[in-house]
């Protein structure tokens, strides 16, 4: 689809929402909107796309209460603004949107969170991504280092970049809008997504990308949408296996889950963001005992998060149940850099080769 076609469709769908409200009010109906319930319990596995999506539970927001009426009013203002932006071919960040609402009186956002949630609602209703509304995410993009050549269409023209040869030690930074990205060539066997910068640099220093034909992707914590889309595309269009290497704690498992299955917040666009084939490397709870890693005691929050994961459909496999129960028994967690306690080379010379060949990746 061309950019113009995409813009026209986005505008049409946004205005469609307003049109429905118009008709409701004309018929004496208090305007309302229906949305899928955005909770863990309404996540369902979609066999076709192999990702987790929202199920059939819906909730209705009707302007019959003050809170919901204000919500609809804000949504109306946002639709109006986005329509204008599309007409003028401008773009903006969510934060800017938040400040623009300053002039909207009752429809002014009280906090950034609110405008973010509202944009997610619009994504769900229109079945389009915020980028289609010309909204720029502000999240930090991650970095890529490895045998990959790509082409990025920027406002300043088309750039061709090789992610080992044309970049500095910090690698290639993933732009916000990966729709403008095209992978032209590669010499890789798999992609390894890494949670922390320290480990990313360790793999680079130790030449892991060269030795094993790996594309290193630094996730920078909970990965941004753009990072997740790049991973999915590396997997899908280049056919490369994707593995995820994180710390060994419940929050890191959620990082893996958001790469592999999509997150609850963005279940409406899981098909674009999730990489169902992504595999978890570690740190596994069993690694903590197997390698006697330096570990911290689980906090109350950690334990609660692990218990929540036991009821999370995305972790409903035997592998995860065993690992999580093991961790709840041990009451310990470790970071990925904890492998340093066994020497700086241990992770690239011992742990990863063993683990990846077990997993059948190398």
């Amino acid at each position, binding site marked *: 689809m061309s950019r113009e076609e995409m813009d026209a469709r986005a505008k049409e769908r946004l*205005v469609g929402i*307003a*049109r429905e*409200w*118009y008709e409701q*009010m*004309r018929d*004496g*109906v*208090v*305007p309302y909107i229906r949305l899928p319930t955005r909770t863990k319990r309404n996540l369902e596995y979609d066999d076709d796309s192999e990702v987790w999506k929202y199920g059939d539970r819906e909730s209705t927001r009707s*302007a*019959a*209460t*003050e809170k919901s*009426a*204000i919500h*609809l*009013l804000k949504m*109306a*203002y946002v*639709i*109006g603004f986005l*329509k204008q932006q599309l007409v003028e071919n401008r773009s903006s960040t969510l934060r800017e949107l938040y400040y623009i609402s300053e002039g909207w009186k*009752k*429809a002014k956002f009280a906090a950034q969170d609110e405008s973010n949630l509202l944009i997610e609602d619009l994504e769900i209703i229109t079945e389009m991504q915020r980028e289609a509304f010309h909204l720029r995410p502000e999240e930090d993009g991650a970095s890529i280092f490895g045998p990959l050549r790509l082409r990025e269409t920027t406002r300043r023209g088309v750039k061709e970049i090789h992610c080992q040869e044309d970049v500095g030690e910090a690698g290639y930074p993933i732009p916000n809008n990966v729709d403008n990205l095209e992978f032209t060539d590669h010499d890789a066997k798999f992609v390894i997504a890494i949670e922390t910068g320290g480990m990313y640099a360790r793999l680079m220093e130790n030449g892991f990308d060269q030795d094993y034909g790996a594309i290193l992707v630094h996730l920078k914590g909970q990965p941004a949408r753009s990072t997740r889309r790049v991973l999915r595309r590396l997997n899908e269009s280049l056919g490369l296996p994707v593995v995820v290497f994180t710390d060994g704690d419940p929050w890191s498992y959620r990082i893996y889950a958001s790469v592999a299955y999509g997150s609850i917040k963005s279940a409406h666009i899981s098909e674009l963001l999730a990489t169902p084939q992504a595999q978890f490397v570690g740190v596994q709870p069993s690694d903590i005992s197997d390698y006697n890693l330096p570990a911290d005691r689980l906090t109350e929050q950690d334990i609660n998060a692990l218990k929540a994961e036991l009821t999370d459909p995305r972790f409903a496999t035997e592998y995860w149940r065993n690992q999580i129960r093991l961790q709840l028994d041990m009451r310990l967690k470790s970071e990925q850099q904890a492998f340093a306690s066994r020497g700086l080379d241990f992770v690239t010379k011992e742990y990863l080769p063993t683990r990846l060949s077990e997993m059948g990746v190398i």
Partner: protein
Amino acid sequence: MVIAEDLAREQRSISVAEFFEKNKHLLGFDSPTRGIITTVKEAVDNALDACEEAEVLPDIFVGVKRVEDEVYRITVEDNGPGIVPENVPPVFGKLLYGSRFHQIRQSRGQQGIGISAAVLYAQLTTGTPARITSRTGAKTPAHRFEVMIRTETNEPEVISHEKIEWDRTHGTRIEIQFRSTLAAKKRLLDYLRLTAIVNPHARITADIDGEITVFERASDEVPPCPKPVLPHPHGIEFGALKRLAAASRGTVEEFLVGSFSRVGKKTAEEMISLAGLKPSRKANKLDSNELKRLLEAMQAVRVPAPPAQQCLSPIGEDLICRGLEKEIHLDFIKARTRPSAVYGGHSFIVEAAIGYGGRIPPEGNARILRFANRVPLLYQQGACAITDCVSQVNWKNYGLAQQGLPMGPVLIMVHVASTNVPFTSESKDAIASIPEIEREIVLVLQELGRELKRYLSRREKKKLQDDRARAVCSIIPEIAAKVSEIVELPPVDTTPIEGKIMRKVVAKKRTVDGKVSIEVNNYTGKEVEIVIYSLSRDTAEDAVPRPDFVDSIDGEYNKVWRCALGAGEAWRVLYTGTGEGTFDLRGVDDGMKVVVDLDV
């Protein structure tokens, strides 16, 4: 031996007056400031008791006047039955002399200590006698006494006695002089106000050093005077039983029936047989062992509760509310009188009230008003079972903040009426913690808590609804405006929606393709009887339903439909026409309806 004899020489009897002179604080005379309040309280208690016994509407005067530097004259005068001259000296000049000690019934004073203690402390601080004026009826003269107490013997000493002229036909007046201050003036007025609240039939006039305050009656009915009752068999102890039996002349059966309340012939027989005695035995011939068996039998046999109706005089829910409302401005007030109950053979009734809002300060702890036998308790709030019970109740359940005591604009009033109120000390400041009484207090407070909660949540709900409806009606038009702008269509009318949300009756008229439709929706919660008027050139001959009445005026037809619409129901009429003209709905308050003519 020498020592014991030395010691023996020191031994002697102590008069009760000496005892209480030394232990002032036990009777509430621990400070000069407090002395004034205690004196007024004792005198007013006696005045109210006397009026109640005489079935007179009390009219009481309280005066406090400075006579010299730190000396105040306290005067309390009533319109009661008066005191016969022979009794004036012992009533005022002897501790432990009175009429109510041996009676089992609710009364304010009981021990015969209070007023004579005031006389005792007055003479201790100023050396002056008490002056009492009393008259028992129009046909007798008034007598004036000056009385002191001989501390060593606890006997009255009459300093002077004369017959005088007095404008009152009956009543008593006492004047005593005290070394004191007026620091507790506010507290004294508080005491009188509280007294007025629980004695709504009394008028009290106060003259505090020239400043007059009148607490008017809220009721003109004299409450019934409680009648003495016999002791209840479950409340008797061995020593008392032994004494009563020794004084009896009849058989055991006669003794039981005649000396105890709620014991009839049948009950007495049951007790006697359970005790293994012959009914014909003389009660005064029973030995200790037999009496013990009898006591056990008396406890074992079921006996109805004592006759509380007769010996107690609760204020009643209505008069409590009236008394409180008269003195304190409140948004909400509810009172409860519990059924009578028993502890250790003594009848008691707990009454309570809860007030909210009005002029009660919205911050801080709840105001707690404690009363016992219609007397306010002013001191030692912390040591009182009432306070303790107020803290025990979980007020958070009833919508109040709580830190020990409940907090906020709340007033809690508790009145314990009993034939024997268990005070923690003779100064009668606080009620002792007796499980049976505490249970009743907690129960009544919980009942009232539920009432309060109902009130608060009704209030909260109403407020929320109003807020919400108002907000919605100001937001929806804005949504409509923005949405209309986005879809680039004329502004959409939102009045019907507003009606719906405001829970009103909404009438809409709309004409499409030569057909006029009028639709009425009753969004209120109640059935409404409505009349729809449509004045236009349309004849509406094909209207379904047909108009109840059509009036033709200058070529226009006024079509009238009547209908009863249940809550949530809709009514609709359809007829051929152009839709011009006027249209209205009647039968509902303007505030409750929205009429929208979409053809205009």
